[in-house]
C-alpha cells in the first residue's frame, strides 16, 4: 500500500528523468556515440572471426565478447531505424534516426537499472514509524540512485551504457544482501564479461564468496571453521562463472583468437593518465612533478633542455616520462592497487561482517583501483558512488563520507561537458542532486548534529569557488590561450584531495575494531 505509492512516485520521477533525456537528444554527442555506432556496424556486418581484428575505425572493439553479442542484438533492432549506420565504412555517420535509435537504446536498457535500484531499496530496512514517504530511507535511496547526476551526464548526455552495466552491479549486490549468493555470482560474472573494468571489484566478490558462502559456518569467535567447507558450493560457483565465460569467450577460444582479444581488452600502451586526469593520486603526483620541475628550472638546478618536452598537460593520451620524480609504470600501479586493497580484503576474510561488510570491501576495492590505477577514467568514480548510496541511507558516518565523495566525484565530471550550451544544464542538475542529497540525508539523520565535519564543509564550499573560476572566470581571462589545460588541472587536483580523503575515511570505518559504538 504505502510501498506501492512510494514506487509510484519514484517511478514517475524516473519517467521524468527519461523524458528529460529526450529533451536533451539534440545536445551534441561525443566520440562515444561514434564508438558504439561503429561496434553496431562491426558486429552486424562482419563475421565473428573478424570482430577483434577489425580496425577501419580508430574505435576498435575493446570490451569483452558478451558486450559484442549485446551490440549484435541491438544491431538487429537498429536495422529498422536506419540500415546505413550498420555499414562499417560509414565513419561518423550520425543521421537523426541513428541518434534517435542510440538514445532510445540507452533509455531502454536503463530499465534494468531501475529494476536494480528497486531491488536495492527492498534491502534497506525502513524503520516502522510515522515517517512519511519522502523521508523513508528506501525512498531517499531510490532518488539518489535514479537521479544520480553522474549517471545522467555520462549516459544520456555523453552517451554510454553505464546505466545498464550498473544495473547488473547493483542487482548483484542486492542479491547478495538478500542472501541469494548464486544469483549474485551469476550477475557479476555476466557483468565482468560485459565490461572488464569491474575486475577492480572482483577480489571483493572472490574473497567474500569463498569465506562466507563456501564455508557454511563460523567458529564461535568468528574465525574460519575449516571443517565447514562445502565443496558443492564451490563447484556451483565455479560452474556458474565458467559457463558464463565459456558463453562469452568460447567462440574466440575455439578460433584461437584469445591473445588478440586480450590485447584489445588490456591496451597498456595508453598513458598513466587519461587526456583529462582522473582525480586520483597520480594527478597529485604529476602536479608535484611539474611543480618540482618548474622550481628546478627556476632555481637553475635542472637544465630545461634535459626535461622531456610536451608534458602530460598537453592533453594527449600518450606515454610520457616524469621529469623529476621517478616514472610510473603499469606494474607499479598494479602493485600499489593491490597493496591498497589488501587490508580490506583481508579484513573480510578474518573478520567477516556479513553482506554489508562485503559491500564496504567492494567500495574500497573500487576506490583503491580508482586512486592507484593505470589510465583511470574519471567516470570510474561512479563504481564507488552508486554502491555507497546504499550504505549512506543506513549509517550516519557513511552518509557524511557519501556527501563528500559524491559532490567531489560529480564535480570532477564537469569537464566532460565543456560547451557553453551545456553549462546551464550541468550546473542545474548538479545543484539539484546536491541539494537533494544534503537535505534528504540531513533529514534522515536529524537531531544528532551535523553530518559533515567543519573541514569537509570548507572543502566543499571551496568546490564552488573552483567551479566559478573554471567555468566563468577563466574563459574570460587572458590566460585562456596560453594555458588551456589549467582549469582541468585545477579540477583534477582539487577533487583528488576529496577522493583520497574519502578513501581513507572509508578504510577507517572498515578497519575500526568491533566494539566501538557505531550509530545505527
Amino acid at each position, binding site marked *: 500500500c504505502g510501498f506501492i505509492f512510494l514506487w509510484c512516485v519514484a517511478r514517475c520521477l524516473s519517467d*521524468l528523468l527519461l523524458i528529460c533525456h529526450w*529533451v536533451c537528444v539534440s545536445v551534441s554527442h561525443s566520440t562515444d556515440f561514434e564508438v558504439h555506432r561503429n561496434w553496431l556496424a562491426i558486429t552486424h556486418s562482419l563475421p565473428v572471426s573478424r570482430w577483434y581484428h577489425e580496425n577501419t575505425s580508430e574505435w576498435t572493439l575493446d570490451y569483452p565478447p558478451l558486450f559484442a553479442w549485446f551490440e549484435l542484438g541491438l544491431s538487429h533492432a537498429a536495422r529498422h531505424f536506419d540500415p546505413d549506420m550498420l555499414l562499417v565504412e560509414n565513419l561518423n555517420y550520425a543521421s537523426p534516426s541513428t541518434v534517435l535509435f542510440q538514445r532510445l537504446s540507452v533509455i531502454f536498457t536503463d530499465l534494468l537499472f531501475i529494476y536494480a535500484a528497486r531491488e536495492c531499496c527492498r534491502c534497506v530496512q525502513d524503520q516502522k514509524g510515522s515517517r512519511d514517504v519522502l523521508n523513508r530511507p528506501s525512498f531517499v535511496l531510490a532518488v539518489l540512485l535514479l537521479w544520480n547526476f553522474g549517471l545522467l551526464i555520462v549516459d544520456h548526455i555523453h552517451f554510454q551504457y553505464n546505466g545498464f552495466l550498473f544495473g547488473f552491479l547493483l542487482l548483484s549486490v542486492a542479491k547478495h544482501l538478500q542472501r541469494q549468493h548464486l544469483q549474485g555470482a551469476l550477475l557479476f560474472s555476466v557483468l565482468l564479461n560485459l565490461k572488464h573494468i569491474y575486475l577492480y571489484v572482483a577480489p571483493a566478490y572472490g574473497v567474500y564468496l569463498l569465506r562466507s558462502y563456501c564455508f557454511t559456518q563460523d567458529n564461535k569467535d568468528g574465525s574460519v571453521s575449516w571443517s565447514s567447507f562445502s565443496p558443492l558450493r564451490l563447484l556451483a560457483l565455479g560452474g556458474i562463472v565458467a559457463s558464463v565465460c565459456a558463453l562469452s569467450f568460447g567462440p574466440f577460444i575455439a578460433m584461437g583468437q584469445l591473445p588478440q582479444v586480450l590485447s584489445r581488452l588490456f591496451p597498456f600502451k595508453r598513458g598513466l593518465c587519461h587526456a583529462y586526469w582522473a582525480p586520483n593520486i597520480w594527478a597529485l603526483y604529476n602536479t608535484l612533478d611539474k611543480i618540482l620541475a618548474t622550481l628546478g628550472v627556476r632555481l637553475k638546478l635542472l637544465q630545461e633542455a634535459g626535461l622531456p618536452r610536451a608534458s602530460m598537460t598537453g592533453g594527449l593520451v600518450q606515454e610520457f616520462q616524469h621529469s623529476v620524480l621517478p616514472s610510473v609504470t603499469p606494474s607499479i600501479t598494479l602493485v600499489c592497487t593491490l597493496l591498497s586493497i589488501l587490508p580490506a580484503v583481508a579484513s573480510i576474510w578474518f573478520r567477516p561482517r556479513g553482506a554489508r561488510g562485503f559491500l564496504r570491501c567492494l567500495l574500497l576495492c573500487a576506490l583503491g583501483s580508482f586512486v592507484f590505477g593505470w589510465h583511470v577514467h574519471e567516470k570510474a568514480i561512479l563504481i564507488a558512488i552508486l554502491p555507497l548510496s546504499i550504505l549512506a541511507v543506513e549509517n550516519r558516518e557513511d552518509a557524511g563520507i557519501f556527501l563528500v565523495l559524491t559532490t567531489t566525484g560529480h564535480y570532477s565530471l564537469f569537464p566532460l561537458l565543456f560547451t557553453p*550550451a551545456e553549462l*546551464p544544464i550541468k550546473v542545474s542538475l548538479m545543484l539539484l542532486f546536491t541539494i*537533494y542529497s544534503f537535505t534528504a540525508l540531513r533529514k534522515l539523520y536529524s537531531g544528532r548534529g551535523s553530518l559533515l565535519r567543519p573541514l569537509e564543509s570548507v572543502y566543499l564550499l571551496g568546490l564552488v569557488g573552483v567551479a566559478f573560476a573554471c567555468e566563468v572566470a577563466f574563459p574570460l581571462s587572458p590566460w585562456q590561450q596560453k594555458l588551456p589545460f589549467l582549469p582541468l588541472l585545477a579540477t583534477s587536483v582539487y577533487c583528488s584531495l576529496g577522493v583520497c580523503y574519502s578513501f581513507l575515511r572509508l578504510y577507517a570505518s572498515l578497519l575500526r575494531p568491533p566494539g566501538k559504538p557505531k550509530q545505527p
Partner: protein
Amino acid sequence: MQTWSLVSMCVLLGIVVRWGVSLNSYSGAGKPPMFGDYEAQRHWQEVTYNLPLQEWYSNTTENDLNYWGLDYPPLTAYHSLVCAYVAKTINPEWVDLHKSRGYESPAHKLFMRATVLVADLLIYIPAVVLYCLYLTDGSTKKKVCTVFCFLLYPGLILIDYGHFQYNGVSLGFALWGVLALGLGWDALGSLAFCLALNYKQMELYHALPFFCYLLGKSVKLGLMGRGLFLLVRIASTVLVTFALCWLPFLSDPGDAMQVVRRIFPVARGLFEDKVANAWCSLNILIKIRSILSSDSQIYISFACTLLAVLPSCVRLLMKPTFWQFKLALVRGIQLIILPLFLKDGLLVPYAVTSLAFLFFSIYLLSALEHCSEEELRLGAFHKLLFCLPKLDLFYISVSAMAGLSVVTVALVPPTHLPDLFPVLVSSTAFLHFLGTFIYFNIVQFSEPPSRKSQKKND
C-alpha cells in the same frame, strides 16, 4: 523536508527542462527571407539600438515595417534595447543595422535563449513561487506540487523556449499583479498589471477581471469614503505607469497614434494564422468571411467577446472576492498551436513536455486528494451534460489531443482540404476552451468556497 529546498529543486528542474527545450530548433530557423519570431526579436534589438526612439514604430527608409515591424507596446521595445546593448558588447555583428538581417549562428542562438531564461528567472519564476507559497491553500507539499506543475506547464515552455517569445515577462508581471491583489496591495497590483499590459497587449484579456475586481472592491468599501480614496489611488497609479512607459512618445501625438496603430492592427482580420478561437471553428459551418465585411467582423467579435466574459465580470463586480477574481482570470485564452510547433520542428519537445506535464498533474495532484474536491464540482458539470454517459471527460480530451497530434504528424491531409489538420486542432482547442469556460462558470456561480479561503480574502 524544508520548503526552500523543495522549491529550489522544482525551480532547478524547471530550468533544466526549459534549457533542454531551448537547445532545439526555433521559429523560422534557416528559412529566408522572412525567417520567424526569433528573427523578429533579433530585428527589434537591431532597430531599437540603431534608430532614434521616434522612428521605432514608423515606416522610414531605415525601418521597413513590412520586415517584422515592432507591434508590441513600448516596454517590449525597451527590453529589446537592453538586450541589444548586451549583444553589442559580445558581438556587434548581431545588431548591425541592415547587415545583420537573417543572422544565425550557434553563439547567437545561445545568447537569445539566454535572454529568455534571464527574463524568466527575474520575473516569471519568482512570481510563480511566491504566488504558490503565499496564495494557495493546502499543505506545504501541495504548494510545492503546485509550483512544480506551474513551472512545468508545457505551453509556455514550448512557446518561449522553443518557438521563441517572451511571454514569461508579460505573464510574470500579470502574476505579480495577481499576487499583490491577493495580499491586499491594490496599487502595486495595478502597477504590475499595467507593466504587463505595456509589455504585451494580449494581456487585455485579463484586464476586464482586474478592472471589475478593483471597481467592485472600491464600491464595496463605500464610494463616499475609503472606496473613493482607493479608486483615486489606483487610477493615479495606472495613469502614472502608462505615462512613464509612453513618455518618449507623448511629445508628438502623431508618434503615439502610430504606436497604437501598430499595436492594434485591425486591418489584419480575424483569422491570423488559424488561431484557436470561436471564429475559426464557426467558419467551418458558416463562411463568415464571405457574409460579413471586415469592419462588421471586428465589431461582432468585440461584442461577442464582451458578452462571453460579461457574466463573470458582473458576478465579480457584485462579489469582489479574491477567489472570484482568480476564477475570472482563468478565462485567459489558451492557444494550443500544434501546427506552429510543427513548423518550427518542435514536435519532440512538445510531446515530451506535454507528457511530463500530464504525468505530473495526474500523479501528484490525484495523490494529494485534490481530486475529491474537483469531483464535487464536476458532478454539477456532468449533470448539465446529462446526455453524455458517465465517461471520464479528462481521458477523452487527452486521447483526442493525442490522436490529433499523431494524425497531424503521420498523415498527409487530402488535397482538397490542405488545412484540415490545423483547423481540426484549432476546433478541438476551442471545444476544450468552451468546456472549461462553462465549467468555471458553473463553479463561480455555484456553492461558495470553503471557509478557509473566505477568511483569507477579507
